[in-house]
């Protein structure tokens, strides 16, 4: 009898709590973000935004995402504004998302430049910044718990395989003299610093013979290329955004110049747009990162690369925004959020952070293994191997992964012919 009473009381309490939870559940989860439909980062920002939209639309078609604190599926509402690649506009709009729209989750726009203004704003408002692709190492400090990097590693980690190859394999190939050219922003500056450190640690196995920065909006490299050539380098690293890489590769091609070993970032990250502007010949034998938009990982959560690619093509058939790594990055952000909402104890910002950190080392998506540093929120997984572009028998671009050895699919061609 006592047992039956206790059971009845428990049942009443359980249903009351459940009902209270259901009543508390919001009608929607508001996700706030920015995108750039114009300006220097438009192409890549839109790719990231459209990748995120694919995830969001899929989830809403399924009735929303499971939100653990409310134990039910809740639809997602995207509140988004166009910052036009302008940091001042972005700062105003990030504030608006937090204070006026009162979003539940704040996502940064593409890249380090447009994310840099969000970092202090989010911190001041004690709002967790879901940093999608802003990988500047300076964003991640032990005293700021209000940031996590979801879709790519922090920029000091990016060049790991490339620098390892240069200092370990390079001398065996005859690479000694290295020229380093980088765009002066957080993303490329951090990578340049990592390259410098690796070369310094090589104890003279390789040496820097050219080390200069150029503004991120640089569009003409003819004189710079001539200056690099004058240093007679064995290897050249050009670290820039897509506009920089296109201009650099076009200037090389137009000048009939071929460096023996050339590394640039965006032939790998945004292959389609670079190919449209430079052509396959201009990309041949260029070394680059092999990103998740090219390399088929085996995801345990979310779509595979080929499924995602098919979805992208059917959703965006006009081709105005090219498919590339940033498309995958936007989609990956969605997957990380989905997991976090399904496991968080509450919708409090630091609880969300804890839930995201809880996925570290466990979440395997289209973008590789998600791995995050608990102290700083910086991503150290999803590291991209070094590849070299070659042309197949039809003259089409294909990637050969050359480093690390366990991922290699072929040998590097050196010197480039």
């Amino acid at each position, binding site marked *: 009898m006592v047992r039956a009473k206790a059971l009845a009381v428990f049942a009443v309490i359980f249903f009351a709590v459940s009902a209270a939870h259901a009543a508390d559940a919001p009608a929607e989860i508001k996700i706030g973000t920015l995108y*750039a*439909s*114009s*300006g*220097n980062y*438009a*192409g890549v920002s*839109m790719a990231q935004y459209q990748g995120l939209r694919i995830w969001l639309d899929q989830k809403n078609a399924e009735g929303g995402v499971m939100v653990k604190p409310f134990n039910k599926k809740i639809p997602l509402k995207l509140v988004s504004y166009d910052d*036009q*690649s302008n940091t001042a506009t972005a700062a105003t709009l990030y504030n608006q998302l937090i204070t006026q729209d009162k979003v539940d989750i704040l996502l940064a726009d593409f890249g380090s430049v447009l994310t840099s203004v969000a970092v202090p704003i989010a911190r001041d408002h004690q709002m967790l910044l879901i940093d999608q692709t802003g990988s500047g190492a300076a964003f991640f400090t032990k005293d700021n718990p209000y940031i996590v990097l979801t879709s790519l590693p922090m920029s000091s980690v990016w060049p790991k395989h490339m620098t390892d190859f240069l200092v370990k394999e390079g001398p065996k190939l005859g690479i000694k003299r290295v020229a380093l050219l980088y765009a*002066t922003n957080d993303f490329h500056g951090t990578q340049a610093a990592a390259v410098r450190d690796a070369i310094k640690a090589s104890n003279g196995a390789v040496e820097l013979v050219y080390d*200069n*920065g*150029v*503004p991120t*909006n*640089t*569009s*003409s*490299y*003819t*004189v*710079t290329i*001539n*200056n690099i050539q*004058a240093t007679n380098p064995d290897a050249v690293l050009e670290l820039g955004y*897509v*506009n*920089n890489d*296109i*201009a*650099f590769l*076009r*200037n090389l*091609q*137009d*000048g*009939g110049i071929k460096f023996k070993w050339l590394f640039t970032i965006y032939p790998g990250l945004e292959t389609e*747009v670079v190919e*449209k*502007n430079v*052509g396959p010949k201009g990309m041949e034998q260029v070394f680059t990162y092999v990103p998740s938009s090219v390399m088929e990982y085996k995801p345990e959560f979310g779509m595979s690369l080929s499924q995602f690619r098919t979805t992208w093509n059917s959703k965006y058939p*006009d*081709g*105005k*925004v*090219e498919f590339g790594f940033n498309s995958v990055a936007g989609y990956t952000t969605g997957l990380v959020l989905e997991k976090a909402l399904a496991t968080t104890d509450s919708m409090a910002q630091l609880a969300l952070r804890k839930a995201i950190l809880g996925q570290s080392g466990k979440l395997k998506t289209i973008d590789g293994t998600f791995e995050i540093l608990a102290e700083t929120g910086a991503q150290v997984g999803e590291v991209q191997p070094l590849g070299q572009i070659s042309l197949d028998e039809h003259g089409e671009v294909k990637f050969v992964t050359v480093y690390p050895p366990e991922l290699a699919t072929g040998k590097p061609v050196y010197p480039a012919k």
Partner: protein
Amino acid sequence: MLAYAILAGLIFGLYFSLVGLGLNLVFGVMRIVNLAHGDVLMLGAFAAFWLFKLFGLHPVLSIFAVFAVFVAVGWPLYYLVVPRLLRAKDPEMLSIIFFFGLSQVIVALASIAFGSSERSIPGRVLGSGPYQILGQSFPAAWVVTGGVSALAVAFVYLYLYRTRLGYVTRAVMVHREEALATGIDVHRVSAIAFGIGLALSGIAGVFAPFMLGSVTPAMGVDINITSFAVIVVGSLGNPLGTVLGGIAYGISLMFMQTYFSSWANLLPYLLLITILLVRPSGLLGRKVRSA
């Protein structure tokens, strides 16, 4: 490296003379500031891109199409806009506001129409292999662009100094009201100059994919800043001063890229500050007043 930087600066400067020429012609004749100048250039670039992509039209041939279309658009646009601006108390300020708005509209429409990604035309279209100039090697696209820019400058010189229309255009540049009093059809002369100004910007756009790496709908802002630096250095209102301003900019940029590359984007502002402090009327400032 020094010789290469000077020669590259000359070629690049010739191109930027062309970039600034249209803006300065419009300012010189109408005293209005066309803040949509960079966007007109962008439209010229996309016109060349689509003409090449859809019809395989060589960029040098697309110059003529761009010239004709932009003059045809510029002429009525003048009658629609400029007389109203000139009737205002402060036409220069009003023109800045108007053309800023127009610039935003053009960028938005172009983004919708063309997408926001980079677009370009293969450099080999303007010639294969680099050319040797005084022992230095330059891309064929640069040499052809430099040559076309020089021809465009010569065209403007002939138009202004060797035709009757040019004489009356210069009269309007010197004093609009006096020109009107002497019976010159100021509006007709200005409309032609406005059309030619836009067409010159459009032609500069045709070569933008070769000189600026790639083109996007948002490229106009940077072009505007550089163009203003070029025409202020050369002399506001004096189209031929633009040539000097362009070359000064080109050579300075190449020196900056060679010796202080990280600071190269400060160059337009440094040039503006320097010229405003040292010679506010520009390098050819005196000539414009006695033209």
